[in-house]
């Protein structure tokens, strides 16, 4: 260990699913995010290193990676917060196919979003007035609690049920479904309930709460999924499923 004091030892995943870690030494900076570390390696050491980012401020959810074993958004993770003895291991997100290095294929994540019928189905059109909606009803409060998801798939990577049961819809898609079930403007609730009651649906969740622990937006998919479970439970008992 004769590493200079002002450097960071970084191991970065290289290759596809069957890749391996490669070691780099990266200069330490006062203001430096994990994304900056990856960028520095691409710019100065390994020009063909693949990774993904867009907004760089925590809005687009493209930059999530596994950092020292935990899924995180990297553009808003300061190195000082996560480095252990000036060491970082950076890998692609779990539970998604790796395209190359740190970039995953997010297709199934969005397919599941659709499979959970995570999309609005309106009752009115662009020719009607905007609906008057009180901002403080319990349903609206439940919507507000879950709506700011940036679909970064951090929760999806943190959920072991997804790893064990690869067809499980996962926390983000179900969280979205729950906000829609609370949306009084939405006309697709019956079909959505059936979708989340399917074999890949909400009842697969064992409340591990890895999703809650890791969501960078501090959302609570567990609570949303519990809401769906209740709705499915009620529908099953009343024969409406």
């Amino acid at each position, binding site marked *: 260990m004769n590493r200079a004091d002002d450097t960071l030892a970084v191991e970065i995943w290289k290759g596809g699913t069957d890749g391996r870690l490669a070691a780099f030494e990266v200069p330490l900076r006062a203001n430096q995010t994990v994304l900056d570390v990856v960028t520095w390696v691409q710019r100065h050491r390994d020009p063909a290193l693949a990774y993904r980012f867009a907004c760089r401020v925590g809005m687009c959810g493209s930059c999530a990676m596994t950092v020292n074993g935990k899924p995180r958004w990297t553009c808003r993770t300061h190195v000082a917060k996560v480095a252990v003895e000036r060491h970082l291991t950076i890998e692609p997100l779990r539970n998604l196919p790796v395209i190359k290095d740190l970039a995953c294929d997010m297709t199934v994540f969005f397919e599941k979003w659709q499979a959970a019928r995570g999309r609005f189905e309106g009752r009115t059109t662009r020719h009607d007035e905007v609906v008057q909606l009180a901002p403080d009803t319990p349903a609206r409060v439940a919507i507000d609690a879950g709506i700011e998801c940036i679909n970064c798939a951090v929760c999806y990577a943190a959920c072991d049920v997804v790893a064990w049961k690869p067809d499980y819809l996962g926390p983000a898609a179900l969280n979205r479904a729950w906000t829609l079930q609370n949306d009084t403007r939405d006309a697709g609730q019956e079909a959505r309930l059936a979708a989340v009651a399917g074999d890949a649906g909400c009842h697969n969740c064992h*409340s591990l709460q890895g999703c809650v622990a890791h969501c960078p937006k501090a959302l609570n998919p567990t609570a949303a999924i519990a809401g769906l479970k209740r709705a499915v439970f009620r529908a099953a008992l009343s024969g409406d499923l």
Partner: protein
Amino acid sequence: MTHPHRNQPLWWAFALHRVSGLGLACFLPLHFLVLGSALNGDAALDGVLAWTESGPVKLAEMGLVFLLALHLLGGLRLLALEFLPWRDGQATLAALAGSVSLVFAFIFMFNVI
């Protein structure tokens, strides 16, 4: 491979719930067999019960009581989580379930010794 993302209290709560459920499910058939042996008369049952007087078996029984209590309380936490409005502090509740179960197990231990 290590899994740092699992290092959070509620993951351990899940693991314990699962282990206790598995443990109980494996023990249940044995338990039924033992009780069923009463069909062959009190003596048969007493024979088995006598066997349970030995030290290691006692300890295992204590474990079982612990598991049952843990699974019960952990299960109640999950039912509350799923069927009642959301409340924060799930980790605290899980820790509570664990400690109460331990207390149960110790009471059991002292009672039978």
